[in-house]
């Protein structure tokens, strides 16, 4: 993925030096968030395809309309052919006009075999017949391109279950468009409940979509994202790397270098101290202040977290998109607090709020808002760090 090559620009290199000099808790938090995302997306790349020993192995591609199934069927075939496999493409979309032609043309372009489906045939029968044909002709892998369908279309979902029952595919892969919004949760849940998918392919990653859907997909299905589609051409398919994806989701193309440097420079003890702090819920207003400074560098965080299931509503995030004035004001407010207050905001009653407002040249409403943001942030960090939070994520329940 081109977006993540992440050579720090001259500018961020300068910032990088600052990072080396002093790594604030806020910056460590960025790194922790990054690592957390990587973990949420499975940590390491998934072993690509599990093909059955018994030939032919079979792959079944499923998903909503227009998500890229047919194109990806051809891309996967091409990928396997390059590994020396004999591949058979099976057009099982008899509904969309010319869908069969589309796959036949693509098969011709890459030199794959293709079953001669007719749009008047039943998709289940097409797949069953194709399997027999693939066996007779000695193909190694057959790839079934099913019609796009809505997850709430019971009749059409039943068709997929019947294909699954007849073929018993080595892998059922859910295809999803990287631009998908909140609906990804519902779609992935339904397809997974219905078919018990084996993995996900995220398409159209060549655009500017952050790809936050990757988090939802992984979270609700618990299944690995195996490939990403990065273009319309037949070779535009890549293996999915959680760390690159996390970087992309965080929109830190140029911050990546920074994080890596922070990672290299951060002494382990320091990082662990912060983690412990967060775990024990000791994230103070002082830490919050450092964090704000860091957030400013990655102003896009709100949009990103907005895409994560359950995070969307973190109000604090919105207010994290601080402009310089806001930042100065926040710093002034926190600076006007006593050390005790910074450690324990519960102390800050009405009287104290008035005093802090006077001291920082702000209003009591400003203080209220800041404390609220802080509470939200602290809550989020705590949830994010808890074992329970991670587990809930995996089960597809969102603790926020």
């Amino acid at each position: 993925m081109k977006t993540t090559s992440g050579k720090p620009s001259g500018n961020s290199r300068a910032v990088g030096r600052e990072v080396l000099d002093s790594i604030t808790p806020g910056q460590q938090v960025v790194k922790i968030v990054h690592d957390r995302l990587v973990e949420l997306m499975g940590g390491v790349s998934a072993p690509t395809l599990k093909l059955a020993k018994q030939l032919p192995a079979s792959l079944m591609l499923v998903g909503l309309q227009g998500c890229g199934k047919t194109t990806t069927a051809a891309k996967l075939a091409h990928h396997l052919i390059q590994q020396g496999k004999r591949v058979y493409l099976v057009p099982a979309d008899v509904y969309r006009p010319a869908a069969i032609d589309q796959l036949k043309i693509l098969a011709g372009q890459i030199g794959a075999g293709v079953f001669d489906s007719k749009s008047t045939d039943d998709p289940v029968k097409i797949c069953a017949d194709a399997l027999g044909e693939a066996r007779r002709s000695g193909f190694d892998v057959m790839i079934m391109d099913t019609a796009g369908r809505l997850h709430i279309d019971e009749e059409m979902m039943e068709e997929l279950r019947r294909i699954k029952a007849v073929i018993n595919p080595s892998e059922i892969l859910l295809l999803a468009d990287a631009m998908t919004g909140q609906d990804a949760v519902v779609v992935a849940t339904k397809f997974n409940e219905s078919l018990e998918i084996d993995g996900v392919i995220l398409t159209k990653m060549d655009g500017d979509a952050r790809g936050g859907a990757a988090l939802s997909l992984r979270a609700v299905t618990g299944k690995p994202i195996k490939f990403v589609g990065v273009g319309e051409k037949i070779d535009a398919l890549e293996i999915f790397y959680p760390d690159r994806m996390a970087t992309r989701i965080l929109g830190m193309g140029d911050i990546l270098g920074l994080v890596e440097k922070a990672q290299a420079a951060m002494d382990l003890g320091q990082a662990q101290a912060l983690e412990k702090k967060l775990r024990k819920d000791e994230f103070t207003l002082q830490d919050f202040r450092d964090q704000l400074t860091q957030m400013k560098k990655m102003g896009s965080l709100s949009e990103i977290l907005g895409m994560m299931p359950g995070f969307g509503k973190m109000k604090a995030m919105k207010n994290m998109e601080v402009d310089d004035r806001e930042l100065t004001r926040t710093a002034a407010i926190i600076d006007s607090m006593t050390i005790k207050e910074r450690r324990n905001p519960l102390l800050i009653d009405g009287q104290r709020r008035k005093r802090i407002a006077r001291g920082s040249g702000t209003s009591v409403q400003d203080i209220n808002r800041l404390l609220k943001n802080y509470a939200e942030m602290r809550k989020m960090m705590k949830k994010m760090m808890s074992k329970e939070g991670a587990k809930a994520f995996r089960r597809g329940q969102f603790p926020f």
Partner: protein
Amino acid sequence: MAGEEKKGSNLFERLKKGLSKTRKSMVKSIDEMIFGEKVIERDIFEEIEETLIAADVGAAFTQDLIDDMREIAKRQDLNNPEILRKILRDNIAFILKKSEAPLDIPKDGLFTIMVVGVNGTGKTTTIGKMAMGFKDQGYSVMLAAADTFRAAAIEQLDVWSQRCGVPMIRQQMGADPSAVVFDALHAARAKKTDILIIDTAGRLHTKVNLMEELKKVKRIMGRELPGAPHEVLLVLDATTGQNALAQARMFGDEVGVTGIVLTKLDGTAKGGIIIRIARELHTPIRYIGIGEAPDDLRVFKSIEYTDALFE
């Protein structure tokens, strides 16, 4: 829209269940502890927020809408949840109302529509549905197969042209789309066609060369027929999240979008980003797509849409 509304409520039920339980208790305790805020008030704001975010309205924009609502509520000292909800609905309906502008096709002369959008949003299908609708209304219609890139895109449009019984102008796969459009314009004029609809290949708004190709098609049209294209229709998929705003902006800047179609509203996605698009770009929303059949296209109605959003 009837079927869609029914299904939509399932989504929100589920989401509500899935998202709110644990959260509520936490939020309550912390807020009550620190701010002693009224719990009832908190709950409807939260609920509305969830609804909007699940509908892809976007986190920041949702917050703006809720802030507006709070403001009005505070000014008028309201705390009845029903009234608060109505304030928000009215605000959204008001924003969308301004974009409620059905496509108005003059009865005289050739009217040309160029259909654009990212890959797989439903351009070709929408063209088929429009052709069917226009023909039923008594217009003569012609199609131009200017997606010469995607495998069998021409064949796909051809099926629709036969379904609707309207002619289609084509060249071979790989041909220059501008050349197809050139042919089509001349054919449409010669046959005194009322409406010419041009199918273009899906392209991501970030691909400079492909956007240039589209600009060229548009230029050729204007050169051959002053005023053409009369409508540049951007097809957006309701399943798309916040990226749809970038699509609307970029296609708007590059080829001057004059109307939007929001497709796939028969699913559980609500396409709420359209509200922000309406507010920021003021692009007219012409139609919504609610299925794959020829009659699954509806004129966009702001009230209908707003109601569906809160179902």
